[in-house]
């Protein structure tokens, strides 16, 4: 299991290498990428803030949840912090599994859970202002 919170650009290859296994016929890779618009406003860049010690711990928990629920071989998760330009990768999730269905399902679950429990926040910077984006508070962490 490879978990990383980093201010450095995310390149997929080391994470893909980390999860590849001879018994795994599927590797699912998800990249969250900075988009140039949000709810009709042009986005110039994003800024991510994190509580790194806790975020790493929670990412590990999310990965462990997936390992407990699907027959997956290995997981790698990385999240960027700091200022990100349009097109840069903010989140990377790589999951390997013997079969594609489980790799897709586990990867999807991990991405959703990160948005619920991992203490990372993004600020959208627009042409005419900026705001910290806050997700829906969920009942049970």
């Amino acid at each position, binding site marked *: 299991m490879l978990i990383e919170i980093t201010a450095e650009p995310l390149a997929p290859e080391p994470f893909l290498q980390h999860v590849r296994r001879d018994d795994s016929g599927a590797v699912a890779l998800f990249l969250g990428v900075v988009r140039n618009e949000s709810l009709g406003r042009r986005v110039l860049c994003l800024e*991510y803030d994190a509580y790194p010690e806790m975020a790493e711990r929670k990412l590990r928990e999310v990965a462990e949840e997936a390992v407990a629920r699907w027959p997956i071989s290995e997981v790698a998760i990385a999240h960027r912090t700091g200022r990100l330009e349009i097109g840069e990768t*903010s989140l990377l999730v790589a999951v390997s599994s013997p079969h594609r269905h489980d790799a897709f399902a586990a990867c999807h679950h991990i991405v959703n859970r990160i*948005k619920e429990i991992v203490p990372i926040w*993004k600020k959208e910077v627009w042409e005419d202002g900026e705001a*910290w984006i806050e*997700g829906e508070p969920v009942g049970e*962490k």
Partner: protein
Amino acid sequence: MKATVKFFAALREMIGARELTLEVTDGQTVVGLFRELCARYPRLADYDSVLFYSVNAEYVSPDYALKDGDEVAFIPPVSGGSGAD
């Protein structure tokens, strides 16, 4: 006794600091500490109903009783990952 309080994102900008070390009274709860800070920083009160609390990097309930040296964080609703769905 003392506790360290960490602030992130919008809360960090409101307080103007990433971290404060505060004197806390014996038996103070984590939500009690938040409400004390609301008196000093009134805009914090907007977060009263949506905030989660952590102590030593683990989520705790609002009525957690603080201990000397605890590291507290007030956690606004998270928004990591990629863009809105």
